[in-house]
């Protein structure tokens, strides 16, 4: 049962943080290059544009769910399993989700990079 809860939490962390990353990335593409905006219109305009983007808040909610799922997962499973497993699976899930929902060009180079980083993060925990 303990193992089932741990893996359920890991699944939830991966889904919530991937959703959060996709929504935040979508929001920031709508806002535009923050550096350019700051130079042209000032910091207040940048903050106003970010706060006027609904997907920014949805992204924050998803990130909040991911954070509490992490706390839940840590209360059931080992730190050395929960953190690297969820982080490395999130890298791979993000690569697929970015291609599907953000229409990013995720070619062989970026897919290989996601797999290398995911494997590297998993090894760092050993």
């Amino acid at each position: 049962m303990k193992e089932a809860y741990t893996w359920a939490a890991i699944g939830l962390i991966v889904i919530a943080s991937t959703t959060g990353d996709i929504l935040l990335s979508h929001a920031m593409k709508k806002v535009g290059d923050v550096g350019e905006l700051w130079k042209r219109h000032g910091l207040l305009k940048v903050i106003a544009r970010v706060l006027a983007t609904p997907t920014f808040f949805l992204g924050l909610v998803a990130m909040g769910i991911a954070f509490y799922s992490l706390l839940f997962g840590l209360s059931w499973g080992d730190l050395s399993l929960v953190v690297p497993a969820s982080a490395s699976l999130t890298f791979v899930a993000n690569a697929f989700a970015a291609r599907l929902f953000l229409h990013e060009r995720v070619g062989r180079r970026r897919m290989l990079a996601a797999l290398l980083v995911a494997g590297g993060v998993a090894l760092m925990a050993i």
Partner: protein
Amino acid sequence: MTFRKYLVLAGVAVFSAAGDSLLARGMKDLGGVSLHNLSSLILAILDPWVACGILLLLAFFASYMSALSWADLTYVLPASSLGYVLVALAGRFGFHEAISPARWMGIALITAGVGFVAAGPSLTPSRKLATDVISQQEAQS
């Protein structure tokens, strides 16, 4: 890619690594938090290490949002994973911690992954940023 953009990506990696390290240092001072004593998590922000960690994580979030405003998510995420490498290297050379062969292998894989992504374009070529569209409209009017 301009120097400013590389600086923002470096900020994403450095601030997340430093923020996480300070949070972990502070939470060690506080000891384990049980489910029956969750209120101590709120008081944890009074610990100077935790407070500094939160400030650095806010700086991480600002640089992460800034990077996402001009680069693809699949470009920014691997770059942010360099933070794991920085923490391990800080442990090795700053605190003389031992790094196992598996962790050195992990460092090599992450560095190779980041190198692969960094050599390619930061933004999907067909994509236009909102600021580019605004610039075009301003130029036409």
